[in-house]
């Protein structure tokens, strides 16, 4: 009798538990779907605490807090790229209004000054958003890690991208003095002076970045830039071939098939009779201007 009474009493809380759990999950989903969108100004609100304050407050967990800010910065950049819904390169994010990226990278590197990846991000992503912050964070990294030649490489890259070849050359040269720095760092100073804006130098810079980057997104950006450079070379060759065809035939070809022998002779990669870019997408023939261009579907960036 007592046992039955107990069972009778148990099904009530058990039912409340089940129904209540289902109920609150449903209400939570309802709240989520009706939650007003957070204003951009609030989302972009400055960080409350400086890196130094956080370092004091982290009670020895500063490395972990730095990791947290680093992952937050990655999510922030990733989220902005996704919301832009287009193919944007990591080094061309100026239109995405990323006010918080510099403070996040600054906090991460203040909490853990030896953490190298945020410096790489500061050099690759930040210049398009805030060049002075990119240089400041990289220089802060150099001050904290004077034996890291890679930070000079990052600084040189920032200056090179901005077209300041003299400062870029200086940065590479300073880095070359550090023990363990590769020999090409020293050669960069002379190359910056002689061929600052050349494609070959760009190829070398992105090639080094591709080899050394740990972050898959930075690696991919360097890879895409290398493919872009390769595509620029190919387009230059194709333009010359178009000129030859025009001179020979007296008009622009109506399709790639018409100049297929020329393309084959130039050893360009061809598919379905037409040249393809390094991403495997056929080039577009602009018959009205007699020019070659990247197809809109190509993953090679225009700029």
């Amino acid at each position, binding site marked *: 009798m007592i046992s039955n009474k107990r069972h009778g009493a148990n099904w009530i809380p058990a039912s409340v538990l089940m129904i209540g759990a289902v109920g609150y999950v449903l209400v939570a989903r309802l709240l989520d779907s009706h939650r007003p969108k957070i204003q951009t100004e609030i989302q972009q609100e400055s960080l409350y605490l400086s890196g130094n304050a956080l370092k004091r407050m982290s009670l020895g967990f500063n490395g972990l807090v730095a990791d947290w800010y680093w*992952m937050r910065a990655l999510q922030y950049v990733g989220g902005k790229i996704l919301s832009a819904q287009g193919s944007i390169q990591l080094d061309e994010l100026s239109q995405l209004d990323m006010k918080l990226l510099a403070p996040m990278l600054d906090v991460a590197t203040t909490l*853990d000054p030896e953490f190298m990846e945020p410096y790489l991000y500061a050099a690759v992503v930040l210049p398009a958003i805030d060049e002075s912050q990119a240089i400041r964070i990289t220089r802060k990294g150099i001050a904290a890690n004077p034996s890291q030649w890679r930070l000079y490489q990052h600084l040189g890259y920032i200056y090179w991208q901005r077209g300041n070849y003299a400062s870029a050359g200086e940065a590479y040269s300073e880095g070359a003095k550090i023990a363990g720095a590769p020999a090409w760092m020293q050669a960069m100073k002379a190359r910056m002076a002689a061929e600052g804006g050349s494609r070959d130098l760009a190829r070398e810079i992105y090639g080094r970045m591709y080899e050394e980057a740990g972050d898959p997104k930075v690696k991919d950006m360097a890879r895409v830039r290398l493919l872009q450079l390769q595509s620029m070379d190919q387009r230059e060759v194709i333009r010359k071939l178009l000129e030859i065809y025009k001179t020979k035939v007296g008009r622009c070809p109506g399709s790639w098939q018409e100049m297929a022998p020329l393309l084959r002779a130039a050893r360009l990669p061809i598919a379905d009779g037409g040249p393809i870019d390094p991403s495997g997408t056929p080039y577009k023939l602009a018959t009205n201007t007699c020019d070659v261009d990247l197809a809109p579907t190509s993953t090679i960036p225009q700029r």
Partner: protein
Amino acid sequence: MLGRVLAIAGNAFREAVRDRVLYNLVFFVLLLTGAAIFIGELSGGQERKIIVDFGLSAMLLFGVFIAIFVGIGLVYKEIERRTVYAIFSKPVGRGEFVVGKYLGLCLTLLVNVLVMGAGVSLALVYVSRGLDPLVWIIWPAIFLIYFELVILTAVALLFSSFSSPALSALLTFFVFIIGHFSSDLKGLATSLGSAVARMFFNAIYYLLPNLSNYSFVTPAAHGHVPGVPHFAASLLYALLYVAVVLAATILIFRRRNFK
């Protein structure tokens, strides 16, 4: 005397095991496994560093909670259950009782830290797809964490010898927090103009443990090992500080009336 201390220590260890204190290892392993699997997606190629930061920080945090909550219960529970009367009716000194209880919890923490350290090492092997130098490099930092926990356990025991469990937990947690601000206290003391204020902050600095000496997680994640002088001095500081705190605990405990 040593036999009695070791018997009490063994008993305290068994009690901690019976109280399922080591169950926290299961949570730790689950946390670490989850981190090892998912962090790769989020960290931008920084899995190794984050596993070390995360693993060793979790080890410190779990250890601090065990040191505080088990540490304050060590003596209090014996008094509450009145088993302390039975113990002291035997030829066991109060000092032996305190030291034995303390060593028992230190043993529990050691087992905890060693298993967690092995867990972090295995997670590193997993994320590095092979033997990583960090697997060995992190161990001095793990022992520094253990020294910090040993100090906190002694502090928890001291507070529990004269205060209620809730207040003891709070005070020990404050010591943990202020212990990490110690270097700032010293800086404050040197920068103050007033001699009294300088003396006050200097006194606090030397009275409270300087736990920042034991924070080596972040450098370890970058492959740094503490120098032998730093490691040895940290161990010596821990031993001396624990000796002083345990002596104070014994003095307080001896004044309590269990008759």
